[in-house]
């Protein structure tokens, strides 16, 4: 076979083109090596406060990245482990004095000068700021001041006689006095002392806290903290952690597929993604649900009877099946950390306490399942159900709005609309479809984020006001619930038939959040659930499965997610596969 000159040119051109393409690929390829890239909604930058929960799920997860406690809760393949953070447990005396040696030479991130030049990050020693007992004292003082707003307050107050310690002595050892009503094990003590510590020169009321001592330090300006670099004094394996902004979550799976990110902490719908099925490229890790959807009723627009009937009207099982397209070819498949598959019904909720929570799991709260058909005559002709799809979970919201608009679901009574945040702020709805993100299924389930949050999805504000009763005990002030300061538009100050029950509800909610005894938590959980059920403040729909996808860039054995723990709590242990 003879090759003509023309053919030679063609072949040479093709070869050159191939080489050119190869060079271009090499130059332009997406290299995420030695870094962790996680997506986030661009206009929902995470707010970082290690002592307060935040509605943006990533916020609380980043606490583990930036901060250390005296002890850090971590995990290994067998379960929870406690590792020394800023402290070392020396002794538990028979009188329940706990001796902790504070680690010497632990530097705050502010000790380093960070220089960022495009992708290059240079970290050099700056003015050294070392962790000291004053920092611990400051942190304890802040937690005490936050009170029931902070889960750490509940943990610490149940164990320590006072929010204080003796010392340090010459050995840099401090002494905590633990309460005498239980035998404190090492694991108990480390659990209690796992709250994150911030430096004493911090503000007590900052919006964000960036200066920590954890495995990664922030490299970008504080107003836009999205990039983190390995703490030179830490033991993180991977060099960088970057948060990558996207408009919404609809493209997250594609971005992972396209290697624009390499970690997706939660998938749309919490379901398995058809485009991420190749195990050569991705692996998954499940843990317990942290998001549930609810329809909250506007108590200013719907009376109690109407709310009760609307609750009966909304069939969460039917909605769930539609949501996951159960039985269709497009069924969204799910899996959970226990190994169950497509167990949709397990995610149905019948109480403000989701079915995944300790309170329902342990039957402390046993929600009533009202099968009574709704009396539609009581309801208004058209119920305005709204949702703002701009603050996460766009895909899920859109799907649910469509479902609610289906007359087969709503009996023609509901008109579901996607609205701006302003409409929510104004309370221009009969019912509000809302996702509650980052909820904890543990003892520390957060009711404030549901009932006392300012109805403005663009910011996180809990409207809890405290007053002291004549006996010196704290109690919630009625002004904590006013029509304009919560999603349900509850008003404990406004006279009316509901007022006594609303006030009771507020009292129970506070009692639940403030309680640091398990028994009290349990009983107040029952009271809250019963009270809410009586007031009919919402329909609790269902939770989303929590499924994280990881690029096989990572060694799946180095990533331990378990049950109710934060997904990033072991981030410093994450490693790339050897062949990477």
């Amino acid at each position, binding site marked *: 076979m003879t090759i003509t000159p023309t053919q030679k040119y063609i072949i040479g051109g093709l070869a050159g083109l191939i080489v050119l393409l190869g060079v271009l690929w090499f130059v332009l390829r997406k290299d995420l090596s030695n870094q962790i890239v996680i997506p986030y909604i661009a206009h929902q930058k995470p707010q970082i406060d290690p002592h307060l929960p935040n509605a943006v799920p990533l916020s609380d997860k980043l606490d583990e990245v930036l901060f250390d406690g005296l002890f850090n*809760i971590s995990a290994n393949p067998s379960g929870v482990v406690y590792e020394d953070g800023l402290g070392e447990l020396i002794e538990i005396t028979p009188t329940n004095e706990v001796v902790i040696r504070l680690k010497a030479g632990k530097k705050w991130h502010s000790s380093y000068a960070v220089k960022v030049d495009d992708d290059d990050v240079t970290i050099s020693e700056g003015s050294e700021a070392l962790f000291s007992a004053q920092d611990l004292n400051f942190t304890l003082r802040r937690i005490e001041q936050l009170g029931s707003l902070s889960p750490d307050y509940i943990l610490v107050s149940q*164990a320590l006689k006072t929010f204080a310690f003796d010392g340090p002595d010459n050995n840099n050892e401090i002494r905590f006095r633990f309460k005498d009503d*239980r*035998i404190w094990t090492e694991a108990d003590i480390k659990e209690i002392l796992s709250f994150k510590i911030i430096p004493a020169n911090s503000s007590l009321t900052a919006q964000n806290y960036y200066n920590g001592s954890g495995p990664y330090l922030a490299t970008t300006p504080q107003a836009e903290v999205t990039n983190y670099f390995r703490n030179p004094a830490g033991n993180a394996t991977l060099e960088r952690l970057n948060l990558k902004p996207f408009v919404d979550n609809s493209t997250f799976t594609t971005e992972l597929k396209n290697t624009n990110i390499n970690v997706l902490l939660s998938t749309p719908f919490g379901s398995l993604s058809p485009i991420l099925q190749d195990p050569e490229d991705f692996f998954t890790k499940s843990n317990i649900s942290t998001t549930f959807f609810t329809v909250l009723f506007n108590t200013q627009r719907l009376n109690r009877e109407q709310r009760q009937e609307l609750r009966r009207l909304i069939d969460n099982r039917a909605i769930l099946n539609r949501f996951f397209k159960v039985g269709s070819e497009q069924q969204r498949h799910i899996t959970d950390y226990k190994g169950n598959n497509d167990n949709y019904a397990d995610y149905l909720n019948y109480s403000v306490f989701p079915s995944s929570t300790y309170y329902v799991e342990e039957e402390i709260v046993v929600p009533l399942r009202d099968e009574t058909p709704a009396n539609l005559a009581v309801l208004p002709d058209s119920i305005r159900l709204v949702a703002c799809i701009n603050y996460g979970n766009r895909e899920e919201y859109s799907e649910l709005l469509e479902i609610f608009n289906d007359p087969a679901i709503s009996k023609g009574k509901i008109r579901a609309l996607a609205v701006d945040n302003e409409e929510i702020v104004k309370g221009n709805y009969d019912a509000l479809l809302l996702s509650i993100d980052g909820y904890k299924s543990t003892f520390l389930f957060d009711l404030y984020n549901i009932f006392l949050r300012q109805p403005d999805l663009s910011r996180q504000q809990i409207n809890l006001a405290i007053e002291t009763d004549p006996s010196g005990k704290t109690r919630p002030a009625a002004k904590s619930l006013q029509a304009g300061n919560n999603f349900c538009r509850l008003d404990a100050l406004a006279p009316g038939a509901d007022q006594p029950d609303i006030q009771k509800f507020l009292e129970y909610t506070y009692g639940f959040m403030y309680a*640091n005894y398990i*028994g009290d938590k349990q009983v107040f959980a029952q009271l809250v659930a019963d009270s809410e059920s009586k007031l009919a403040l919402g329909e609790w729909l269902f939770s989303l499965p929590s499924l994280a996808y990881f690029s096989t860039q990572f060694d799946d054995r180095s990533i331990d997610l378990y049950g109710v*723990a934060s997904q990033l709590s072991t981030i410093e242990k994450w490693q790339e596969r050897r062949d990477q």
Partner: protein
Amino acid sequence: MKLKYVMVVLLGLLTACGGYKQLTPKPEVVALEAGYTPILNKDKSFELKKGKKYYMTFPAALKPNFYLVLKAARLEQLNSHLTRQFTKGKGDIKIAEESAANDDLLVYKLDQTVPVFTWVIEEVLAEMVLDLDYRYVPVWRYRFETKNAEFQSILARNKVSRDNYDNLGNGVNPENLRFDEILNEIRTKSGNLKAIQGELLEIEAIFPPDIKNSDDKAYLDYTGLRQELEEELRFHENYSNVLNFFKREKETRNNNTTFSESLSEFNRFFADKSRYPEHVRRAAEKAMAQRLSTVAPFYENKIRQKRDVSPLDIPVDELEKLFKESGRASDPQFQAIAKFTRAFNRNAEALAGTRKGLNDIMARTRNSSNWPSDNFYTNLVPEMDRLLSSLPSASTAQYGQLASAPCVEQLNREALSINQQVNAAQQNFDQAAALVPQINRLRSQNDYRGIIQLLKANSQIDFLVDQYANVDRLSLEQQTAEIAAAYDSKQWALAESRLRSLYEDRYFLDYPAIQSEKMQVQKDYEDKLVAAIETESRQRINTFVDANKATYSNVEALYASEAFKPVYTLTFSAGGPNMVDRYNKKVQDYLDGLKFDQFPRMAIENLYRDFTRDIRDNGVAKAKAVAIHGKYYKGSDRKIQNLVAECDPLVAKWITKPTEYRKIYLVPTNNAQQASNEYVFRLNIQIPSDAQFPVYDVNIKLPREVASAAGSQQWYEKMTMNGNVLKNEGRFTITAPTSANDYECQITPLQVQKTGNNILEVRFKHNAFKVLEVNVMAQRPIIKKN
């Protein structure tokens, strides 16, 4: 020899260093009796310097009772003393100086206790030449020499004039003597002379043995002085007697009563009349003869005035003696008086003797402390006869001329009366002689009521009632003895019966007199009976308790013991039924106290201690015994209640503190061993908490034998909390006990009520019939982040 030199040197040093200078006379002082001998330093006197101190030694006397006499001028310029032991100013014991304020003499009594005495001059007030003489002289001699002149002078001054005495009756009429004046003079002078007589005797007492019969002048002076002194004193005494005789005679003149009273005095004078000179004796006889001529009319008148039968107070014998001594013959009138007086007094005394004899017999019958023997009254017959025969004769011839005196008639009248009394008494004695054997027979039968009956029937024999006056007491004593016998033999019912009989007995000779005593006996024995029943009951129950406090079998039967009842339940009391109830209640209360408090308390403590020492040693029986005792225990001692609770499976054991393991003994609830035995334990969780709705983890550490099969079969039958069944589902976790967790079962979270009881009950079965141990702990669970 060397030692001697050393001693000399030491003595010299001591002498030199004392500040005293020794005066050594030459020639040496010689301890021989002699006159004053000058003390010289060779041929000169010693010169003493003002302010210096000196001493001089004198040998002891060779015989006892010697004085050392130092004589010197200007002794007042010396401050000195004599000592047996010279201490050089450290405190000599000084010998008393006896110079009797003689400025020139120093007199010291020497003895032979030391060989040398030291005369110490402590101070010389002015420079002087010591002109000093010394003398060793016997004490008696020194004293007599220094006092002889004084004695002579005293004797001379105290002699009484003898003029009146020597001329009494011969120119000196006793009537004219100033008796009191002279007697006073004699008394004073005799006193003075007796004083020097005493001093002389003192001196004589220290005469050396060899002085007597010697011709020592001092001694001869002494004996002469003493004889003269004694002769003067004898005269004083005689003169005084004479003066007193005449003085008394003069004083009783015209008063025969006082004269009669002085008869013995006059007779004593005449009995010693040889001491007086003849003229004195004659003057006395003359004076007395004149007085005796007046006494007869006086006494006759006295006889005729007398109306009673007492003996006459006429000193017939003294008068007759005085007649004789004064040399005057008695006249017929006086002789008649003497005869009458002697006859009357004899009869009066016989009458008084008979009366006394009768009274004595009657007194014997009445006052005899012992009841008469059978022949007591028979034996009185001769005595009564003797009384009758001793009565005076009614004849008047024996009284002579004065037989018509009224006192004679009175005496005869009283003699007749006594005669009648004796006869009447004799008749009663005859009757009594018949009764006494009967009484004695009844007494031998302790039949005092029979005696009382007999005496009441013969109440006219008054002395008999008196004689048996104690029959009431004896009757009382008899009944008392019978009660005591029953009491002593612990026959409580019999004792109570006899006590009741005594209480009802009113049959006594003199019931009002014996009543209070009887009541007292009644009360005493009732008290004793009550006390004895109480004591016996106490002793019986105490013995029972001691014997059974460790008993652990058939415990229920112990509480049915008779020991928990009084040894006797009283039915009678002098105080009435209420008192009976009170007595019985007191005893029963004590027994109930034992039954419902002390016995179960002691048994519980004892058994529990024994039980816990080794629960394998009849542990089930002991624990069940504790529980049964606990059923009877009504006390309020929390400790006891807790011990019972520890052994009673149905009593909830309190858990009040968190974190502390509490041991619980598990006793099978079935009474006899079975193939499968039932066990139950209850806990009452009462742990203070600030929580409004507390919950706890309850950990139960089980015996391996109970829990070892828990892996294949549920180890418990049932668990409940306040009656609600706990199941291993929902919020509750009941951890299986395994060898890995040391067979510890945990129940969590266990919700409890903040107030009120929180009873966790666990029931299980086990094939062994024994006491098991479990350890239980509750603690607060904590809220965890994850």
